[in-house]
C-alpha cells in the first residue's frame, strides 16, 4: 500500500466513523485493527497490543486519574461553592463584575484540576444560577464560562500537557510553566473582553444590586482561606518541582481529600461517588489513548509517519509558514477530534520537523496546547459546549456556538501573540525555572 493510500484510507475511515457517531476510542482502535489485518494479517496484531500495554505501563499516565480525582472531589465538595461565594461577594457593584469573578473562579479552579470537565462544569453549575438571577445575558455568560473553562487544561496541572510531555520527551515541569504563562495571558484577554463588553452593553451584565458589607466579605474569606491555601501551597510547591508529576498528582489528591475531610465532608458515600465518577472519566480518557497509540503504531509501522515528515519538509515552505500551517491543521482537527487524540496522532509527525527547523520545541508545544484549548469551544465537536448544554438545557446548541465565537477569535489572538513573540514563552519559562 502506498503511503498516500494508507494515509487517505486510515484518516478517511476514521473521520467517516466519527461522523457516524462511533466513539472516538473505538474508531481509532477499529481502524488500526482493520488496516493491520489488510496489511499483514492476524500476525500483525502484536504491535497493537504492545502499544496498549505501553500506555498501561506508563508511570506518567498515572497522574491523569489523580488529577481527574482532584477535580471531581472539589466539584462535589463545599469548597468550590464557598470559593465561588467569596468571588461573588468580592466582585463588586460594577457591570460585569460577577462575570469577572466567575472567570477568576474558573482560573483558580484550573490551578487545582487537570481537565476542562471540572473547571467548566463546576463553574457553570455554580455560576450560571447566580448570573441568571442578576439578569445576565445568557449567551454572554455561557460563552465566557466556556472560554474560561478551557483554562482547565492549560493552567497547570494539565492532563494534555502530561501527554504532550510523554509524546515528546519534554519535561512536564517546564511544560507546566509554559502553560501557566499562556493560561494567564488567556485569562487576561478574557477579563479584558468582559470589561469592554459590559461597558458597551451594561444590560447584558448588570451589577449586583445590593451592597455587601465589608464584614460579610471578610467572613466569606474565612471559610475559603484554609482549604484553598493548603491546596494552592501544596500544588504550587510541587509544581516548582519537588516531586515528579505523578507524585505531585498523588500528593495533591491526598491534600485535597484532607482539606475536604477537615470540613467533615468525607463520608464513605462521598468517597464512593468520587471514585466512581473518576473511574468513568479516566476510562474515557485512557481508552482514547489506547486507541490512538494503536492507530499510530499501525500507521507508523506502515511508513506513514516518515511519509508525513518528508511530505511536510518537501512542501518547501519557509520554516515560519510551515509552523503556521501545522498549527492551522491542529485548529481544524480541534473542531472534530478530542485533544488527546490530536496530540497522539500529529505530534509524532510534527515534533522532529520542528526540532530540525531549529524552533524552540517548548514554544511550539505550548502554542499547540493553546490550539487544543480552542478546540474545546469550536463547533461542531467541543466538549465545553456540550458541558454547558447539560447545565443550561434551554440554550440551543446554535446559541451556544454563537456565544463562543468571539472567544474563539480572542484565544486565536492569544496564540498569535505567543507565536509572534517567542520570547514570552522562551524567556518566561527560563525565568520561572531559574526562580
Amino acid at each position, binding site marked *: 500500500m502506498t503511503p498516500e493510500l494508507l494515509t487517505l484510507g486510515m484518516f478517511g475511515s476514521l473521520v467517516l466513523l466519527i461522523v457516524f457517531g462511533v466513539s472516538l476510542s473505538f474508531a481509532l482502535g477499529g481502524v488500526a485493527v482493520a488496516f493491520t489485518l489488510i496489511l499483514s494479517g492476524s*500476525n*500483525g496484531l*502484536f*504491535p497493537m497490543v*504492545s*502499544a496498549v*500495554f*505501553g500506555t498501561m*505501563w506508563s*508511570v*506518567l499516565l498515572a497522574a491523569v486519574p489523580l488529577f481527574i480525582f482532584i477535580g471531581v472531589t472539589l466539584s462535589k465538595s463545599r469548597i468550590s461553592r464557598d470559593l465561588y461565594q467569596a468571588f461573588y461577594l468580592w466582585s463588586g457593584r460594577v457591570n460585569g463584575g460577577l462575570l469577572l469573578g466567575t472567570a477568576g473562579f474558573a482560573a483558580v479552579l484550573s490551578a487545582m484540576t487537570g481537565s476542562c470537565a471540572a473547571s467548566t462544569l463546576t463553574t457553570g453549575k455554580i455560576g450560571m444560577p447566580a448570573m441568571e438571577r442578576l439578569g445576565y445575558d445568557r449567551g454572554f455568560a455561557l460563552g465566557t464560562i466556556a472560554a474560561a473553562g478551557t483554562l482547565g487544561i492549560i493552567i497547570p496541572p494539565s492532563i494534555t500537557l502530561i501527554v504532550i*510531555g*510523554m509524546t515528546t*520527551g*519534554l*519535561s*512536564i*515541569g*517546564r511544560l507546566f510553566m509554559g502553560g501557566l504563562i499562556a493560561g494567564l495571558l488567556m485569562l487576561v484577554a478574557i477579563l479584558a473582553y468582559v470589561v469592554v463588553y459590559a461597558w458597551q452593553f451594561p444590560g447584558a451584565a448588570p451589577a449586583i444590586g445590593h451592597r455587601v458589607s465589608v464584614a460579610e466579605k471578610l467572613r466569606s474569606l474565612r471559610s475559603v482561606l484554609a482549604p484553598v491555601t493548603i491546596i494552592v501551597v501544596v500544588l504550587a510547591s510541587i509544581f*516548582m*518541582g*519537588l*516531586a*515528579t*508529576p505523578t507524585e505531585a498528582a498523588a500528593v495533591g489528591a491526598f491534600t485535597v481529600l484532607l482539606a475536604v475531610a477537615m470540613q467533615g465532608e468525607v463520608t464513605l458515600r462521598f468517597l464512593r461517588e468520587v471514585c466512581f465518577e473518576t473511574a468513568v472519566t479516566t476510562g474515557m480518557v485512557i481508552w482514547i489513548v489506547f486507541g490512538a497509540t494503536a492507530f499510530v*503504531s499501525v500507521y*507508523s*509501522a506502515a511508513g506513514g*509517519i516518515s511519509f508525513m515528515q518528508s511530505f511536510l519538509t518537501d512542501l518547501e515552505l519557509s520554516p515560519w509558514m510551515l509552523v503556521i500551517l501545522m498549527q492551522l491543521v491542529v485548529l481544524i482537527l480541534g473542531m472534530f477530534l478530542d485533544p488527546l487524540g490530536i496530540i497522539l496522532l500529529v505530534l509524532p509527525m510534527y515534533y*522532529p520537523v520542528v*526540532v*530540525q527547523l531549529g524552533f524552540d520545541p517548548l514554544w511550539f508545544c505550548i502554542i499547540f496546547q493553546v490550539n487544543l484549548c480552542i478546540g474545546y469551544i469550536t463547533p461542531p465537536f467541543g466538549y465545553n459546549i456540550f458541558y454547558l448544554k447539560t447545565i443550561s438545557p434551554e440554550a440551543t446548541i446554535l446559541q451556544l456556538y454563537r456565544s463562543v465565537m468571539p472567544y474563539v477569535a480572542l484565544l486565536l489572538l492569544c496564540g498569535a501573540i505567543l507565536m509572534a513573540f517567542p520570547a514570552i514563552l522562551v524567556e518566561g519559562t527560563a525565568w520561572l525555572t531559574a526562580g
Partner: protein
Amino acid sequence: APATIAAASSATTWRMQTHFPTGTWYYDAIFQDFARRVTTATNGELVIETHAPGSIVSTGDSLMAAAQGALDGAFTFPAYWVGQIPAAGHLNGNLATFSNNTEMEYFMYEMGALDIIREAYAERGIHQVGPVAGGGVTLFGKRPIHTAADFQGYKIRTTGTAARVLEKMGAAPVSVAGGELYQALQTGIVDAAHWGSVSGGMSMNFQEVTKYIVQPDLVSPTNLEVFVNAGKWSQLGEDHKQVVNDAVRATTGIYTARIMQADLNGIDTFVNKSGGEISMMEASVLEEMRMKSLEVVDEISAQDPKYSGRIGELLHEFMRQTGKV
C-alpha cells in the same frame, strides 16, 4: 546469499527497531550506519530497515516482538531483559569490571561468555549477534565521591543490577523517568544520576544541575546489543552471517571512538565552561565496588545457575587473570 537456493535477485529485509531517540547524533552515526554497512557489504541482498523507538512496538517489548516476528531484530540495550534473561546483565556489563573494549571483547569472544549468553537468548527464540560497546557509565552528582563512605545515603537515579550494587555501597537507588531526570536533579528528588557516559549525561544537560563528574567511570564499556529472530538468522547464508557479525564488531570500535571524542569535549565543557569539577574516587572505592559487584553476580548465579552461573565463573576467572581481585 540465502542459505536455501532462491532466485538470485531476492533480497532479505529485516525490520529493526532501536531504543536510540531519533534526532540524536548516534541514531544516524551508529544505528543507521550499522544498517547501511550491512546493506552495502551484502550488495543489497540483506537490507536492514531502521525504525525509531516505539514506532512498531514499545521498547520493552522488542525482545518478545523479535521472537514472535513483529520485528526481525533490534539494536538495543540488554539491561531491559535482565528480568527475563538474567544473562543479559552480563552482556550489558557489570560495574567495576571491564576497563576497556579489549578486556570486554576478550571476555565475550575469547573466554566464551558470548556463547553462553547466546544459549540463553536462544531459549527465547532469539539469536544474540553480539555486544556493541557504548562508552562508560559516568556518574554526575551534586556531591563529590572520594571514599566509599561518600556513597552513604546518596540518592542516585539508576536501574537494574547497577542499582543493586550501588545499594550495597550504601546509596539509595531511585527510579525516575528519563524525561523527568533533569528536573529531579534540579530539585533534589535525586542527588546523582548516570545516563551513559560523559557525553550522554551532557546531552541531558546534567552540567547545569550537578557539580561533579565522578571518575573513573563505574564500568567501561557498557554494552548495547544486536539480536535477531532465530529463524531469520538461520535463513542467512554463511557469507551474510559473517557480514553481520563483522559489522557488529566494527560498530564497537566506531562507536567508542566517536563517544570518546564527545566525552573528552564534554569534560572540557564541564570543567572550563560550566564550572564543574572532576571528583576522583580513591582506588579503594573501586576495589570495594568490585567486591559488591561480584556479590551481585553471585546472587544472580544462584538464581540462574544454568547460564548466569557459568558466566559468573568466567567473570571470576577474568577478574583474577586481570589482577582486579
